[in-house]
């Protein structure tokens, strides 16, 4: 699962919807990551993503996974602007983190109820056991 996907996944337990702790999930530090260089960087796509992304959630997940280098504030880039070299460097970093990085094996849990979800073979399983569904 690509790292950016963590920005869209919350706990499946209905009762957790009433808490602010069900998103993002907490990712285990031992998650196994993989880098896929085959996807080309498309600056416009990345700018559109940045505009939409929940930055705090991203910073938190990256830090769970051992990357503490993200700035606390979302980088400001707008489409149509002439991009400076610095902007392009940010875009390349974001591309490498959000799109090229995937979690292939590992687990994550809800910060509210503690339920653990697994990622196997790159596919996260967010189904609940029958007694929680």
């Amino acid at each position, binding site marked *: 699962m690509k790292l950016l*996907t963590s920005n*869209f996944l919350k706990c499946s337990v209905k009762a957790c919807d009433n808490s602010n702790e069900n998103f993002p999930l907490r990712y285990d530090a031992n998650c196994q990551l993989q880098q896929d260089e085959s996807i080309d960087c498309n600056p416009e796509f990345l700018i559109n*993503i940045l*505009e939409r992304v929940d930055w705090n959630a991203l910073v938190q997940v990256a830090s769970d996974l051992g990357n503490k280098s993200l700035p606390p504030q979302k980088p400001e880039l707008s489409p149509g602007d002439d991009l400076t070299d610095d902007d392009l460097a940010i875009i390349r970093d974001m591309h490498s983190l959000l799109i090229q990085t995937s979690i292939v094996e590992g687990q994550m849990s809800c910060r509210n109820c503690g339920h653990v979800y697994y990622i196997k073979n790159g596919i996260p399983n967010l189904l609940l056991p029958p007694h929680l569904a």
Partner: protein
Amino acid sequence: MLPTPYIKCDYETVYEPCEDSFLLLDGLEQEQSFLQTRFRNQLAIVCELGPGSGIVTTFLMQNDIPHGNGSIYLALDISPWALEATQDAQRRNDCQNRYLSVIQSDLTKCLRQNSTDLLVFNPPYVPAEQVPDRPSSNENDKSQWLDLALLGGEDGMVITRQVLDQLDTILSQQGVAYILFCARNKPEQVAESMRQQGWKVDLIINRKAGWEVLSIYRFIRQ
């Protein structure tokens, strides 16, 4: 006519593309410019529920629907076999450079609320005594997964109803949903009750398929 993906998978476990799947492709092709305009210059989060073989999501990726510069495709199925098939379809049709994540999930329970811009669903719509239970393990009698692809409980609407009831928390402010119905789902009644709850609902395409009439409705906020 837009190209149709090449699909090959084990149809003993995964729903084989049928008239309903093809109607969905035709409907989405027809909606292409509507969607392009609606999501111009912005990221679109596309979520297909129940991708099965992956034919619909791959069609969207292949043809840059809603648009080329930025769609994120999320394919959510309850069946692990469907998710494998969907990844396979992506590879087979040279769409590896598109952003796709497949997720095993019961409907949209795991999705952050109000984040989906384009929702597409060809649900299990065949009327049946009840919706079958989920097999207890991936390896269990594989045909049980196929029952889940077809059987929709009372009026064939039990699963679709859950999605419609949640639509307001699933879709983003500009979100659009395309959902397929068969005549026995009584889609006109369903559409009318959604209109009364403030949705703009339009029939975008319908077709006779054998003795069944299939239709696709589009749901947006008023």
